[in-house]
């Protein structure tokens, strides 16, 4: 019988096959949700989804696009913002 702490749905169940040809249940934590644009709410591209201990070891270029406001605003919103600034 699984212990009480394993019954929560914040953990996901994974069947793993062992070298001894047994299938065994492993409980793993879920990945965080996708990053979204702060102005329009669209899903951002080029942003990794991983637990914090994995994000720490990733290089900077894999976590956000190399563009001003990369990882914060989508490409449409940044272009709109630059146009409005230059027209003033």
């Amino acid at each position, binding site marked *: 019988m699984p212990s009480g702490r394993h019954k929560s749905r914040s953990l996901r169940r994974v069947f793993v096959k062992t070298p001894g040809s047994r299938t065994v249940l492993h409980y793993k934590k879920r990945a965080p949700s996708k990053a979204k644009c702060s102005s329009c709410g669209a899903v951002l591209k080029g942003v990794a989804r991983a637990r914090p201990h994995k994000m720490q070891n990733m290089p900077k270029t894999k976590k956000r696009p*190399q*563009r*001003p406001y990369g990882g914060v605003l989508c*490409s449409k919103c*940044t*272009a709109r913002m*630059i*146009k409005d600034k*230059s*027209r003033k």
Partner: protein
Amino acid sequence: MFDVGRLCVKTRGRDAGKKCVIVDKPDETHATVDGLVRRRNVNIKHLEPLKETIKISKGASHATVISEFKKFGIEIKETKKKESKSRPKTQKKKKTPKPQKQPEKKAEKKKQEKPKKDETRKEQSSFVSQKPEVSVKTEKKEVKKEATETKKDKKETNIKENPESTPKNG
């Protein structure tokens, strides 16, 4: 509007938000661009035109663009390319094969033990005839230090063979 010499601002790419000048127009949809931005062909949709223009001939070099920008008050810094250093390869330590000492040690030990046994027996026989009392006690102490059951048995037999010479220990 998008003619040679027009000042623009780039809206897309990693150069976004920086000023540039149109240097050439190969297509209706594309333009070559230079200034604070890398010299390259760019889609016109990714440019936002400004009011100012610069007097530049078609296909002007990078040096003329820098001098014209200075008159406007914009300074362009030339960056040198970094020479990529090759990573030093870590030399792996060569594993020296360990010399096999263990069997030799055991053989040496056995060889050392054997002469000791013979010597003690010889000592007993020689000492027993001359000075029995002192010699036997010392011999027995030496025997106890080196002792195993086999040795003790053999020496007891030797002692028994010469009962007159060996005194009884009190």
